[in-house]
Each structure stands twice: as C-alpha cells, then as structure tokens.
C-alpha cells in the first residue's frame, strides 16, 4: 500500500462531497492510503500571481509542509486546490525572494523550500497506479459510453508550474476514459474556461462560456462530460443552455471499479 497526504479542500467538504467520497473509495480499491492532515486551511481558490503577495500563499505552504513532515507526496483532487498548491510550490522553488519571505513569516524548524512532490489525483492514477494496471482492476467497464473530458483551465495552466500534461492537447483524462472501457470524445472547448467565479458577479458571461463548452461537447457526440473541478461542474450544469449530464471523474471511476455503491 502506498501512502499519500491527501488535501481535500473546502469545497469537497460541502458542495462537492461526491468528488471526495468517490476519490476515497477508488483509492481504497487501488490499494492507496490517503491520509488527511489533522489540520488544514482553504487554499484560497485562485492563486495570486503577484510576487509581493505572501499572506495569500501561506495556507498552501502549510499544506505542502505538512506533507513534507510526513515524508509523503501530496495529492489533491479539486482542480483549484491543485492549481494553487502547485503554483505556490513552483514559486517557492524558483523564486528565492518568495521563499525567503514565506519562511521569514512561518519560522518553521526547517525552512520549506519546495521539497514536496504534488500530484493531482489523475496524475497519481497515471504515474503511480498506471492506466494499464487500473484497466485490469475495472470490474464494470463503461462500454459504449462516449465521454467528453473537460479540463477547463485550472488543471493545465500555467503549464510550466503545473507540468501535468500538454496544455493544448491534453490526454490524461482521455487515457482514463479508455482505461475504464469508455470512448473519449475530443472537442474544441475542452481546455477553455467555463466562466469560473464570474457566475457570481455576472451570470450572463458564465452562461456564454458554459454554453460554448457544453455545446462543443454535444456536437461531437458526447453522452456526458466529466470534470475534476466543482466550479466547472456547477457552471456546466447550471449555467449552460445546452443540456448534457456532468459528473466528477471520480464518480465514473468508482462505477467502473465497482465501488460506487459502497462509498
């Protein structure tokens, strides 16, 4: 059994319980132990790119350091947490001034300098489990289902910090879709923004973006869309004028692994 520090983040405790619940059930089925830190704080949702903003980066550093102290890699499943934590880790590793200011504030016993390896849950499936091995554990393949992977923006960009997949032609979710026995649907809008937090201040702009995404997937013949992001799921479901079912990728994975009912 392999052990990871698991950072769920605030939304997975409230509006995105399914993303979390199925992620935990699938990890168990894949012989992976996800250990949640005793204490954690919200990542902040979006990364502040300004170099002189330090306070807004500290909660991510605390999470990164808690994984370092446990000597385990860190895994996140929410796209936003993944983005904030990886960008923070990248800046601490590549910008000596950020590292110095953060450590000056935190006064840790040993300074945190970007040592923790951060995985998105999808990367853990690809790089630790392996999609071939995953395919062998599938008990209920989703044969015949045409699934559109929705990456949005937070999983992939900026690619130099996230280093997850080709930002313009990604395939990690399509590889997962094949591993669970379904057929991936490639469509133009899969890595364009859903409108994000703009839904709060100006719903009409989120409606435009989300409708463009769902229409693009529907036109290519998708039966459903899967995502790793609670805000993408919300926008694609509530703000799109084209209807297509939208699920978390962990839910379809749990179905394929035969653990959906137990979770």
């Amino acid at each position, binding site marked *: 059994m392999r052990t990871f520090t698991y950072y769920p983040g605030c939304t997975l405790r409230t*509006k995105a319980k399914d993303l979390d619940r199925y992620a935990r059930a699938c990890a168990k089925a894949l012989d992976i132990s996800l250990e949640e830190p005793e204490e954690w704080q919200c990542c902040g*949702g979006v990364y502040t*790119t300004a170099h002189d*903003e330090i306070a807004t980066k500290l909660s991510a550093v605390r999470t990164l350091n808690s994984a370092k102290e446990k000597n385990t890699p860190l895994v996140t499943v929410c796209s936003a947490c993944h983005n904030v934590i990886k960008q923070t880790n990248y800046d601490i590793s590549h910008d000596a001034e950020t590292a110095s200011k953060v450590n000056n504030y935190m006064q840790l016993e040993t300074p945190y300098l970007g040592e923790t390896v951060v995985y998105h849950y999808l990367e853990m499936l690809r790089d630790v489990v392996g999609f071939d091995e995953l395919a062998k554990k599938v008990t209920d393949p989703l044969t015949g289902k045409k699934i559109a992977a929705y990456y949005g923006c937070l999983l992939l960009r900026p690619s130099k910090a996230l280093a997850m997949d080709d930002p313009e032609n990604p395939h990690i979710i399509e590889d997962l879709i094949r591993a669970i026995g379904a057929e991936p649907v490639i469509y133009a809008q899969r890595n364009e923004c859903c409108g994000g937090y703009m839904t709060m201040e*100006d719903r009409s702009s989120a409606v435009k973006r989300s409708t463009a995404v769902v229409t693009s997937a529907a036109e290519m013949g998708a039966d459903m869309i899967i995502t790793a992001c609670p805000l993408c799921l919300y926008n694609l479901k*509530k703000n799109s004028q084209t209807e297509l079912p939208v699920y978390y990728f962990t839910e379809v994975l749990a179905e394929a692994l035969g653990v959906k009912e137990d979770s």
Partner: protein
Amino acid sequence: MDNKQKEQILRSSGVNVLKCMRCGKCTATCPNYEEMEYHPHEFVYMVEKGDLEKLMASQSIYRCLTCFACVERCPRGVEPAKLIEAVRLAAVHRQGENHIVPDDIPGMLDDDLPQQAIVSVFRKYTK
C-alpha cells in the same frame, strides 16, 4: 503619471511589457474579451505608457477569469494575466476600494454554488 506605481506594478507582476510585439494573440484567445473595455493586449500597452488610472477605474480588471490562456499562449512569454492581477491589486488595495463586500454575497448564493467560487471572488476582488 506616477512612475513609482508603474514600477511597483511591473515588479509585482514580474512582467516585461517591452517584450510585447502587439500580435494580439492574448486578446484573441481570451474567453472573456467581449466583456472587457480594455483587452489584454491593450492592458500591456497601457501599462507601458503609464496609463494606469484608466485601467484601475475600468471594470475590465474584474473581468479577467484568471484562466491563464493568455499566459500560456503568448508567443513572447509576456504573461498579460499577471499584469492584470497586479493592476487589480493596486486598485483594490486603495482604502475603501474593495470590489465586493461580504454583504453582497448572500444575494449571489444558490444551493449548489461551491465555496470555491466565494473564496475566489474574495481573493480576486478584495484586499
């Protein structure tokens, strides 16, 4: 124009505006450009000229989705979103100038809205 503020914005964003060759790819790829009075490529030029007050007074700085499409796709690595972030921070850091206040939030909620949206809005729109 206050050169010190321009210097601060350039330093805070880490952006070198002189690398921009005005190809407009950032604007072409911006998913929210229709909502903006000033578009990403104009932002870069306006900061270069020191035309900051117009930018800071514009709603355009709150229309950036932070999707990093312009950062990823700029052929010169200018990273316009980082500049927009620095200008927006300079605007909301003024006394009394938060773009959103907690009392605004209840009217924006529905049963399914994820916390992620609320914390993101506070992170982007307030000091």
